[in-house]
């Protein structure tokens, strides 16, 4: 399966995402924000970083970049799309996922190895996990506070659209400890923590066995390989 990663001006984790895709068994493909060419990919990752320096609002300018018209069209036809951190912010600004992301409630940037619970596994990006599985992946953001109005929040919870939830520590003031969301169809997933930074022994979070040996994020990139492409 060919999985594309879009590089925007200010993307930081595009290379890590490409590597994670390869380690998961997919064929990574670099895509460029300024083109309209998806290069025949079967799935797309919007990587972390600070596209356009977070000017206007984080993810807002990237959500209107040329390639996003193709991404939105394909996502609406069922192509798997994953947004990580800034990519999640872009998906929210593109209205592919609900709610909004605002500055952390404590006002500072945070970087920590974060424990999260996988809440929903009926998605293109989480089907290799089990419901309730607890994983640890790095988190690093300044504007990761998830918010939505009461009605939207009720709908997200009622329809099982919360994909990941923070455990032990809510690192940014997100409502209901929401760390990641899915869309109704399950092909679009966004999350603030970084699964692509926990895919390779020696470079992941610490585990009880060994330093930096955590690879809990790898299943995200393995999940998409067996996801049904509906388009």
């Amino acid at each position, binding site marked *: 399966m060919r999985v594309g990663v879009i590089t925007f001006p200010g993307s930081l984790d595009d290379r890590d995402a490409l590597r994670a895709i390869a380690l998961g068994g997919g064929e990574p493909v670099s895509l460029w924000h300024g083109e309209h060419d998806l290069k025949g990919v079967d799935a797309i990752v919007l990587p972390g970083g600070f596209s356009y320096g977070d000017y206007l*609002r984080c993810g807002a300018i990237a959500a209107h970049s040329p390639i996003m018209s193709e991404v939105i069209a394909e996502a609406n036809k069922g192509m798997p799309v994953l947004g990580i951190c800034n990519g999640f912010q872009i998906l929210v600004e593109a209205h592919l996922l609900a709610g909004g992301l605002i*500055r952390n409630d404590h006002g500072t940037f945070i970087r920590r190895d974060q424990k999260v619970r996988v809440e929903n596994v009926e998605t293109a990006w989480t089907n290799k996990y089990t419901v309730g599985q607890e994983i640890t992946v790095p988190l690093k953001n300044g504007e990761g506070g998830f*918010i939505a109005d009461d009605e939207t929040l009720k709908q997200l919870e009622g329809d099982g659209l919360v994909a990941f939830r923070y455990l032990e520590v809510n690192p940014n003031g997100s409502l209901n400890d929401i760390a990641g969301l899915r869309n109704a169809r399950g092909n679009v997933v966004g999350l603030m923590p970084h699964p692509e930074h926990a895919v390779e022994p020696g470079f992941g979070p610490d585990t009880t066995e060994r330093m930096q040996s955590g690879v809990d994020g790898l299943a995200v990139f393995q999940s998409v390989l067996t996801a049904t492409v509906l388009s």
Partner: protein
Amino acid sequence: MATVIVDVMPKEVLLDPAGKATARALQRFGDGQITDVRIGKRFELIVDGEITPKLLEHIGEIAKDVLSNEVIEDVVSIRAAD
């Protein structure tokens, strides 16, 4: 050339961490009469020709779709500069 000013504010129900941090800093100034701060954005759009109702309608759409995110912000005013 004319200028249209668009003001955008974070929704009142939301915590505004930047405003809160600024409000705390302002406690060190004056006699404590300033109790809270909310920080928004002011956009100045420079336009060609006259400001017509049609142009303002167009700017209204841009303000809603691009300059603000209605989930977290409100467009509080759109007006011609003096």
